[in-house]
């Protein structure tokens, strides 16, 4: 039986932890209302109150549904979040990420944090496969999956309806299995060892 355990991970520059109702801030509310932030996710920008956002955050059980904040380690600034949902029957997790603070766009936040999160879900929560499903026009997201070595499983044509204008949108699915993840880690470790002795 799956039980509630908090996520608390550190990378070189960032801290990842479960968001709590008290994390509902004006910054976070501004991201939800910003078309530049929400548009690539095909989510209509929404003006919410702090109470509404707190209630939304409370809806994540931390067992099969996680809302994980990305904070800078230098000054504990909340800059974005991951939403992770686990299909417990199949041990498959889906990842979504939002970098709300535009000052961190292009700052390789996802490239640094997602491997740590993937490692956590593969190794500590027995997830067998992780998928990500960006819209085909979410170019930064596609870049990140490719740069991190995720496998493109397919392109779903006209799979989503645009929240902005109702047009049909293509969606991609990237994936990594736990075996692929471990193989990559082994190759990376060997390469690092080779460099160390070269």
């Amino acid at each position: 039986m799956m039980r509630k355990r908090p996520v608390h991970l550190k990378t070189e520059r960032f801290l990842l932890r479960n968001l709590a109702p008290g994390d509902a801030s004006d910054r976070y509310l501004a991201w939800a209302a910003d078309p530049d932030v929400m548009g690539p996710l095909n989510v209509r920008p929404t003006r919410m109150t702090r109470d509404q956002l707190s209630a939304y955050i409370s809806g994540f059980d931390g067992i099969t549904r996680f809302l994980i904040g990305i904070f800078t380690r230098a000054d504990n600034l909340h800059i974005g979040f991951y939403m992770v949902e686990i299909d417990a029957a199949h041990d498959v997790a889906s990842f979504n990420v939002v970098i709300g603070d535009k000052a961190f766009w292009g700052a390789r936040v996802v490239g640094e944090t997602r491997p740590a999160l993937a490692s956590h879900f593969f190794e500590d929560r027995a997830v067998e496969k992780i998928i990500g499903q960006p819209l085909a026009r979410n170019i930064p997201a596609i870049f990140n999956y490719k740069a991190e070595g995720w496998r493109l499983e397919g392109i779903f044509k006209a799979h989503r309806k645009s929240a902005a204008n109702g047009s049909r949108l293509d969606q991609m699915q990237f994936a990594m299995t736990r075996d692929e993840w471990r193989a990559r880690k082994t190759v990376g470790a060997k390469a690092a060892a080779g460099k160390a002795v070269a």
Partner: protein
Amino acid sequence: MTASSVNARALLAEVLNVNPDAIDDAASVGSHEAWDSLGHMRLVLSLEQRLQRELTSDEIAGLVGLADITRLLESHC
């Protein structure tokens, strides 16, 4: 070296804001320090401007290296 490959290198250098000499033939997503997500966004928009059309989802999915940029520019010749 074809005109398309020279143009591809120049275009990539421009969107990444680096000298063309800093881009080798094997330059690809994830292997070049200056090639980040915003640079990739600028690359797609710049290609679409040159080709005067939107890239298809398959073209976006296949855009991983300098050779892919060259191929797209050649298709426009």
